[in-house]
């Protein structure tokens, strides 16, 4: 560790988070399941393979265009399980609430959690509530954990071990909506941005792809660290690299405008309803067709390919015909986005 104190960048999901996890959490919690560093741990049980995950939500403001901390907390955990190839079943919900929070805000949050759970077909079966003194937390923090079941043939999805050169990289729609919606709500309350978070449960979309028997090699939801973080993660796997085409990646006009204005690179901005999927080349077109039939995949597109030409590098073919690498986010781009 090169710093004496925790900095905001340690929670960014980028390089600093990576270092913290490696040098502290893995160092002490050290075990084979954790060390795989997948979004969900895959546990062999007598009932078969189970996926288990947890995530905490600290977004500021707690209510933003397109969602609130409640449906974020449900979608996030549902998506973490789903991208492991699992079918999410049961969730827990832990609330840390600041003294003085209006009950109607809490009710809005809890109600939307229930609605989102219904949509995603999961049950919130256990929970915990703590109230802390004013100033000890900011309004409300929520932790959710979730379990789901997994078919044995989907086990390799989590690790990405089956990724091979030629595989296609797919995304289910536009990027950077969530991060910029929160940013707009936080800083420009009076400024109507009409940017809305993409917060959504992706389990049904993923299920329809997996049920088609398409050979899905890897999935990841592109939350903190944005799609760039996922590309870098894929590039680290096996002995392959990847190439993506900037021109195929959709950034909504209003989101692009705000990113340009504030100097954010949309590749690094958080999403809450987007996943990157690596599939066998022969299945790619079919997967796109299936995704486009789902409400959260209408703008699905093939955006790139796995290659053996430059191992461990994520290369971007820029919109103007140049080439450059995509690196992981270093430090903090935007704190408390989820």
């Amino acid at each position, binding site marked *: 560790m*090169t710093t004496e104190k*925790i900095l905001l960048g340690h929670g960014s999901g980028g390089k600093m988070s990576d270092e913290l996890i490696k040098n502290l959490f893995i160092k002490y919690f050290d075990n084979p399941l954790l060390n795989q560093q997948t979004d969900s741990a895959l546990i062999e049980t007598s009932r078969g393979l189970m996926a288990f995950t947890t995530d905490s939500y600290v977004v500021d403001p707690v209510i933003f265009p397109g969602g609130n901390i409640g449906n974020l907390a449900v979608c996030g955990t549902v998506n973490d399980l789903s991208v492991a190839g699992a079918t999410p079943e049961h969730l827990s919900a832990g609330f840390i609430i600041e003294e003085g929070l209006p009950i109607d805000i809490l009710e809005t949050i809890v109600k939307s959690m229930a609605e989102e759970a219904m949509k995603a077909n999961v049950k919130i079966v256990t929970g915990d509530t703590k109230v802390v003194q004013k100033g000890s937390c900011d309004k409300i923090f929520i932790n959710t954990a979730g379990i789901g079941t997994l078919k044995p043939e989907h086990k390799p999805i989590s690790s990405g071990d089956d990724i091979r050169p030629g595989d296609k990289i797919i995304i289910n729609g536009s990027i950077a909506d969530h991060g910029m919606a929160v940013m707009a709500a936080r800083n420009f309350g009076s400024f109507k941005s009409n940017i809305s978070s993409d917060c959504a449960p992706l389990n049904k979309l993923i299920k329809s792809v997996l049920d088609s028997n398409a050979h899905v090699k890897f999935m990841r939801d592109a939350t903190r660290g944005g799609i760039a973080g996922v590309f870098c993660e894929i590039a680290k796997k096996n002995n392959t690299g990847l190439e993506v085409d900037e021109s195929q990646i959709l950034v909504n006009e209003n989101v692009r405008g705000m990113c340009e204005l504030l100097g954010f690179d949309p590749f690094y901005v958080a999403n809450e309803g987007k996943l990157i999927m690596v599939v066998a080349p022969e299945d790619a077109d079919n997967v796109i067709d299936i995704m486009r039939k789902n409400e959260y995949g209408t703008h699905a597109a093939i955006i790139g390919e796995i290659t053996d030409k*430059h191992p461990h590098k994520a290369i971007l073919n820029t919109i103007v015909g140049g080439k450059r690498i995509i690196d992981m986010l*270093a430090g903090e781009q935007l704190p408390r986005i989820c």
Partner: protein
Amino acid sequence: MKHIDEYRDASLVKKIVSKIKSEMRDEISLMEVCGGHTWAIQKFGIPAMLPKSIKLLSGPGCPVCVTGRRYIDQAVAYSRLPNVIICTFGDLIRVPGSTSSLNAEKAKGADIRMVYSILDAIELARHNPAKKIIFLGIGFETTVASTAAGMYNAYNTKLENFFLFSAHKIMPPALGALIDEGVKIDGYIAPGHVSAITGAGIYDEVVRKHKVGCVIAGFEAVDILQSVYMLVKQINNKDFGVEIQYRRVVKPEGNTKAQKIINDVFTLRDDWWRGLGTLPKSGLKLSNTYKHLDAENHFDVEVEDTIEEKGCICGDILKGLKKPDDCALFGTVCTNANPVGACMVSHEGACNAYLRFNI
């Protein structure tokens, strides 16, 4: 997006690149002296498009990069004062000082806020009359204009708890100094937004004295490549002059209203540049009228002795004498997560841009 997409048109880019290739004769070195250009060139992947005979050098155009450690150390000292709020642009927070950084002080409890504009800092001062707000003013003529407007506002509204700690610098002295230092430069890709304020005249002397090409460029792919093409032609024809490519923003005379406010608010002083040392009349401090708003004048702090990082070659990189990957620390000890030198901190810094984008 209107006013952006037309300047990122892949077919137009291709045409300009082929025109550049057909004009190329000898090897040439072009230097961009604006961090915004450094970043844009890498972000669009321009080096991979150009012929190998064009060497692109990154000059001292990243304000964070050329600022000395002493400035950071002094800002750190201010942040430790009671009842003081430091307001700064984001980049500066992560720059390592001799033994600390603003980021580290923030984690220890200092009140350090990131702002997008000096006006945010002024608002903060109005709402916190019991606190003293210090704005860290950094940058070249572009940000100088907004700082000047802010100080003009603070002065006229008689704000008593708002202070400027200036690291502002002006660009022209550095351009000449680089060539005097022996850096081989055939042409400058001159900074578009600086020129929007100053006008094109500030480059006349360096072009006349050193016989180099100079094109004031915009920040999109088409802008940069068209500027490279214009520079190649100037160099081939030995017809050196100041041309404006970025006509949609830059007028030959610049923004005369901004120039007047800058001249009222600031006065020139000798200033220290990383890599170039002290350059006469290259920095800006508040003029006598505004002296009472100058943090250096108002606060008395003890600043630690400056310790420079061993092995860091930011100075040579800023002069274009070395490339980032010539540095032994690059990508190993010095990364964008743990920057050692200032060039790795700012996204406009050459090392940061190289590490993030260069294949």
